């Protein structure tokens, strides 16, 4: 187990180094640099101003040299300043990451809970399986932004029960939950389909296995059969999906964050890349990659905990 963790962490370090290089080069090769963007917003800037500002920000240096300087600073724990927010990149990132992780944790938990519940229902009550399947298909087919707008129109505009977006102005759990409800529901509905379908399939497969027959033959109740014998085996693919979703959602909740005007990692990465904010974009991308790798590692560990056969693999 320790070897696995060490290997994965080493893998992650190499991945992050390669990713930082690729991302830096790609952003650097995009049309226009930060000074070009400043000129677009303020054409009063003259050619002399542009040259002065480029020299001031080190943009007159070759891309490779700039990357080297950035990497060296990062190794010393200096992540630089965000151009877009005029404050340390890390200071901008942490609140966004916190907001995304809250959204992610709540929506994934809800998606897994409801999705696995529906999957179990489909597996145990085959007559209901077509309905669950239809529901899952519907959830998967509805575009997130459309679903988000529907929920806003219904619950915020028409009924007035919940806020249409943003974050709570006042402190307090209840206020925070009210602002979280619609984005969490949107993300959860979009994701629960996969959990319902995979858990149903995994449970159906598990329930046909010989050890289930043995368990029944030993007199285990259906409840025991389901939760003690079938569910742990069926949980392995669900965990894999959850790990993949966690990584993807850290940076991929852009649409939900945009619809609900929630500052988060997806929107931050989008704005940073489009705004040529190297420091912020790189830090956010690296963090996203790290979260993806770490969630994969967590899934591996959980699978090993659930399935003893994997421990020796």
């Amino acid at each position, binding site marked *: 187990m320790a070897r696995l963790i060490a290997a994965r962490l080493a893998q992650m370090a190499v991945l992050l180094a390669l990713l930082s290089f690729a991302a830096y080069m790609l952003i650097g090769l*995009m*049309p*226009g640099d930060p000074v*070009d*963007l*400043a*000129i*677009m*917003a*303020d*054409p*009063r*800037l*003259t*050619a*002399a*101003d*542009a*040259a*002065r*500002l480029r020299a*001031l920000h080190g943009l007159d240096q070759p891309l490779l040299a700039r990357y080297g300087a950035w990497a060296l600073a990062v190794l010393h724990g200096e992540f630089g*300043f965000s*151009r*877009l*927010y*005029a*404050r340390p990149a890390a200071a*901008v990132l942490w*609140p*966004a990451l916190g907001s995304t992780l809250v959204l992610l944790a709540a929506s994934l938990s809800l998606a897994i809970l409801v999705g696995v519940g529906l999957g179990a229902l489909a597996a145990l009550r085959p007559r209901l399986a077509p309905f669950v399947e239809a529901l899952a298909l519907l959830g998967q087919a509805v*575009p997130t*932004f*459309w679903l988000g*707008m*529907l929920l*806003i*129109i219904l619950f*915020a*505009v*028409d*009924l*007035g029960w919940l*806020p*249409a*977006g*943003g*974050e709570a*102005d006042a402190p307090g759990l209840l206020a925070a939950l009210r602002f979280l409800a619609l984005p969490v529901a949107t993300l959860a509905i979009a994701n629960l389909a996969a959990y319902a379908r995979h858990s149903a399939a995994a449970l159906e497969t598990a329930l046909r296995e010989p050890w289930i027959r043995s368990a029944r033959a030993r007199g285990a109740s259906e409840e025991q059969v389901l939760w003690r014998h079938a569910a742990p085996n069926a949980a392995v693919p669900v965990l894999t999906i959850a790990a993949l979703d966690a990584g993807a959602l850290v940076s991929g909740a852009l*649409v939900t964050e*945009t*619809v*609900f*005007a*929630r*500052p988060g990692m997806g*929107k*931050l990465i989008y704005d940073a890349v*489009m*705004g040529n904010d190297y420091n912020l974009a790189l830090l956010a991308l690296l963090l996203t990659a790290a979260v993806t790798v770490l969630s994969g590692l967590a899934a591996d560990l959980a699978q090993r905990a659930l399935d003893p056969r994997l421990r020796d693999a």
Partner: protein
Amino acid sequence: MPAAEPVAAAPRRWYRWRMRRRSTLLLAGTLPLSLARPLARPALAQPAARDTLTIGITQFPSTFHPNIEAMVAKSYVLGFCHRPLTAYDADWKLVPMSCEALPTLENGLAVREEAPGGKPGLRLTYRLREGLRWGDGTPVSSADLRFAWEAGRDSATGFGGAEFYRSAHALDVVDARTVTLHLDKVTFDFASMGDFVPLPAHIERARWEADRHGYRSRSAYETETANPGLWNGPFRVAEVQPGAGVTLERNPEWRGPEPAFRRIRIRTVENTAALEAQLLAGQVDMVAGELGLPLDQTLALQRRTGERFRFAFRSGLAYEHIDCNLDTPILADRRVRQALLHAADRARINERLFGGKQTIAQTSVNPLDGVFDEGVRRYPYDPARAAALLEEAGWRPGPDGLRRNAAGETLSLSLMTTAGNRTREAVQQVLQGMWRQVGVETRIRNEPPRVFFSETMSKRRFAGLAQYAWLSAPEGVPRSTLHSDEIPRAERNWSGQNYTGFRNAEMDALLEALPIELDRDRRTALWHRLQAIYAEELPALPLWFYADAHIWPQWLEGVRPTGHLNLSTLWAEQWRGR
């Protein structure tokens, strides 16, 4: 505009109008759905206690420092909190803000003098208003103006435009409230101080002197934005939520008329469909026209919501036009450009797409501007005249209806704009159809704004027509877009905004004469000649001046949209709740 930029003061320049119409990108498809809904009822509105006003805008300021980077969102927020020396008001007149009077030659506060090098120069005297204080109680003083000037003069500081500071070669402190500024040129708008604003020396000077290169990121405006000592307006920044919003609170040290609201919340909702939803849900009270919903979306909202909100449409200085690359052989012929404008039914487009709210442009000068020439040549919709002009230019209809010249070449032009801007894309399609009717083929080739502006336009890589907008100031001299010195070239590091490649000796002379002509009547005559040349030559096809769509609650009064870069928030103390 670079070296030869004639005007020192900021508002007289042209700005690319890029950021503010960046609207629905991801949710374009959802808007019709929301529009299809019947009138929604207010949900979370707070009708009782109106000590707080919540405003929705679509952009977040990337900095709060008054002198670093120009952007509309920053101007909007700072309008509440930071008073400039001078500003243009809602009637497009220059007025003193934190100074007592505007310097003029007549009142003796402006005096001609010889600048270094023997150039004609000016000595301007500004006296700060009595009682003007920073939010921590420190009086706003000459030391603050002196510090702002010193910091701007030092290239290491990294303020954006340095032209003003190059021109303002000396600043003398006369007394605690009076300074004398020496300019090395004489321009008609000398009294306008634009972006030159007092900075709190008691907070900022030490930071600047400790590390001038790092000042941009170490300034208290970035590190302690909620420090009351940074703000001298009726409000001060109380809290910043990066990317999400800014909360302002009443500045207890403000000595002007007391603002009606104790707190102003400015929420950033970049997606306009989401912003509309928040407005309908009562989460925001108003949507700022300067950074709000597109006109078409606002008109639809107005139709659905009836009397629930107050809507105001204010024509502004955002000039939508189509640049013609005059180095393209087809467009080098003036008759083709005139034919294109005659064949474009701008009034119908305005009526159908914008409810008639835009102001049709005749040239780059807004009809609301005092120097506008009522007698300027106009191009009414006249397809017959367009066809005649094209015939005259040697383009005759071919068997497929498209015109060809003697060499058999088709009259075909590329038409570009910023991809993802639904309004522009709709206009493009209508124009394409209208021009097809007179035998002109247009090929739409749009690009993301970043590529369009950073590469295609700034390096003149467009082969035909390019549609976008400029934002200018009242009586803004369009030197950067029309002077032949301003044609972007590699050897000039692609500076300048004369993307059309327009070269006209008389226009160059006018652009040089205009800024230094102090006599109003003589200047107006120059302006009229400039407009006549523009309308005749049509380096760009004028479309319209955008109207900002302001949405206010019925109970809010006193907001006066300006239509230019000195935004309505500069007079926020006059806003009242009923």
